[in-house]
């Protein structure tokens, strides 16, 4: 094939890669081979073929046509393309997207700011308003404060009972014979020693949903420190922050470099200490993440005081469907420790029927107790 054309096609694959597609050298070569067999003049079949080759997931699939057109079509023709999923348009070079794996998850701006945005009077308990305040994360990795937490979490991780799964493993005792091993070991040796099959045990997955709204501001950093310690100790831990919207912070939080973790969190934390819409955030979690993250070995840990300004009933409905997917739902409420506390907040009352463990979490001692309760429930 002509050298300039080869360069142009390689350039296209590079553009695709820059836009966050997982494509490598092999895909480059295959793209060239396909172009040779189909012929570069047959635009539509070529686009179909490359789409199949270069895309790996649904969102890439839906973005591909735009990228293809903006690379191959002269700029004045780009708007004339027929029947596409997301309409015509120029190449979106999304600098905040995780291209190259440097930045964390894309920033979530207040695009879903529909409900109580006009209600800017910040009540003491909870409000639906968002803030653009960015929290100061410097104390997050302060060694003095984290040490005590680390000790508790490490103990928790060690004590965390491994759950039985349906995958199986050889054992020296049990009810079912491991015929393969028994026979294999028996051949040549003469004497048959019995080997057994037992269910394999794995650690459960933890999904943490931490409320960082204003009413929780006293506890937010404490909880975040716990989350950081947990995700360092247990690999299968996923952390989300929510206030008026939901943010996935696992990657940023588990960054081994404490300074980088702070920077990434600061970037993600727009809206910190604002109002609370627990129901909507749970709905967003259910829609976007639950299918991928929550299975029958997942423990959901929600930390919140239950002050919700969202639509009544939504929190209960969404928590019900989440509880159906997960193994256990644990609700940590810092207010529960207060003498004479009753779950009077509407959100809390709605949530209670769907919770397996309801525990206070205002200091380390209560946290230790809460994790013991979680382990008993798992």
């Amino acid at each position, binding site marked *: 094939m002509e050298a300039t054309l080869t360069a142009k096609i390689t350039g296209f694959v590079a553009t695709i890669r820059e836009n966050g597609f*997982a494509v490598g050298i092999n*895909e480059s070569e295959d793209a060239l081979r*396909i172009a040779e067999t189909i012929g570069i003049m047959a635009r539509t079949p070529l686009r179909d*073929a490359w789409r199949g080759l270069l895309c*790996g997931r649904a969102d890439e*699939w*839906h973005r591909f046509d735009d990228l293809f057109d903006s690379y191959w079509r002269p700029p004045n023709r780009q708007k004339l393309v027929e029947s596409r999923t997301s309409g015509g348009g120029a190449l979106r070079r999304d600098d905040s997207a995780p291209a190259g794996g440097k930045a964390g998850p894309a920033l979530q701006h207040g695009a879903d700011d529909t409900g109580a945005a006009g209600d800017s009077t910040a009540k003491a308990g909870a409000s639906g308003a968002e803030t653009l305040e960015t929290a100061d994360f410097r104390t997050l990795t302060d060694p003095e404060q984290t040490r005590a937490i680390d000790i508790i979490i490490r103990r928790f991780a060690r004590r965390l009972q491994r759950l039985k799964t349906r995958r199986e493993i050889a054992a020296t005792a049990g009810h079912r014979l491991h015929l393969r091993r028994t026979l294999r070991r028996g051949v040549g040796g003469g004497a048959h020693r019995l080997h057994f099959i037992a269910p394999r045990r794995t650690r459960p997955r933890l999904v943490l949903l931490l409320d960082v709204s204003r009413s929780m501001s006293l506890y937010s950093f404490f909880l975040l420190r716990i989350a950081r310690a947990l995700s360092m100790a247990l690999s299968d831990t996923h952390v989300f922050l929510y206030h008026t919207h939901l943010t996935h912070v696992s990657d940023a939080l588990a960054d081994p470099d404490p300074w980088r973790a702070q920077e990434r969190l600061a970037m993600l934390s727009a809206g910190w200490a604002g109002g609370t819409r627990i129901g909507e955030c749970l709905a967003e979690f259910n829609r976007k993440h639950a299918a991928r993250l929550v299975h029958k070995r997942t423990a959901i840990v929600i930390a919140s005081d239950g002050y919700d300004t969202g639509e009544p009933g939504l929190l209960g409905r969404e928590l019900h469907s989440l509880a159906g997917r997960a193994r256990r739902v644990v609700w940590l409420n810092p207010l529960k420790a207060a003498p004479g506390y009753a779950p009077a907040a509407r959100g809390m009352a709605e949530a209670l029927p769907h919770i397996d463990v309801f525990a206070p979490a205002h200091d380390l001692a209560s946290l230790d107790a809460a994790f013991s309760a979680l382990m008993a429930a798992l």
Partner: protein
Amino acid sequence: MESSAAISALQASLLNSGYVAARGLAVTMLMMESIGRPLLIEGDPGVGKTEVAKALARVKNTRLIRLQCYEGLDTYNALYEWNYQRQLLAIKRAESGAAIGDDEVFSEKYLLKRPLLEALTQATAPVLLIDEIDRADAAFEAFLLELLSDYQVSIPELGTVTATTIPFVVLTSNGTRDLSDALRRRCLYHFLDYPSFEKELAILQTRLPQLQARLAGQIVEFAQSLRRYDLKKKPGIAETLDWAASLLGLGISTLDEAGPEQIQDSLATLLKTREDVLSIDHATINRLVAAAG
């Protein structure tokens, strides 16, 4: 190789075998052969992912070997297993005189082939359908990745088995678990969406040729607008086909004649959760039927 003629020819033979394929899917199926990669199909339940593999097997006139994935699937159930009962009998026989050695008990005679090994040892290349790969765990996915790049497996007792023919591999996923990037990169990818009106109508007419044109149009329009409702479980193509068949069974000729009661009774084939059934009442049905014309 993938000329327009070849693409149209494949589309036509897919149609002959009862599968309505978009051009993009036909191109991808041709590429499976020419660049030798597996095909990963994603999409909501009921959009016809599994059907792609079945249609491919019919078109290629070859065997379809299916591996249904589930949590806890391991290599013993996916690849091979020894027939221990026969092995034990052989050893018992050997004890009473007949001499057998190690290699005889672990020979092909005592090997039970599971789908993956079965697919590697066919005389003509079969279609290997690995259904709902997202239900198996990450460890199995990693194992599969190795198999799909080398097309050979090693059986410790027997040696390495290399594929006699490279099977056409189709993987499907519902997205209950995110698949690894490595597997996605290894595969060609196709996202199956809910079909357009024209495509769904074509599917309905291919599968149920005895359906009246007017009723078929109404059914598809009804199903299409039902998908725009906020339902827990949107009806897929399979559900539309079931519903059409049940309407045929009830002897209904058009939806507006049938009336909301009869339609609601038959909706059991279309709506699969209690909330959805309750949310579609008579008034909604009347509105949908009126819109369907």
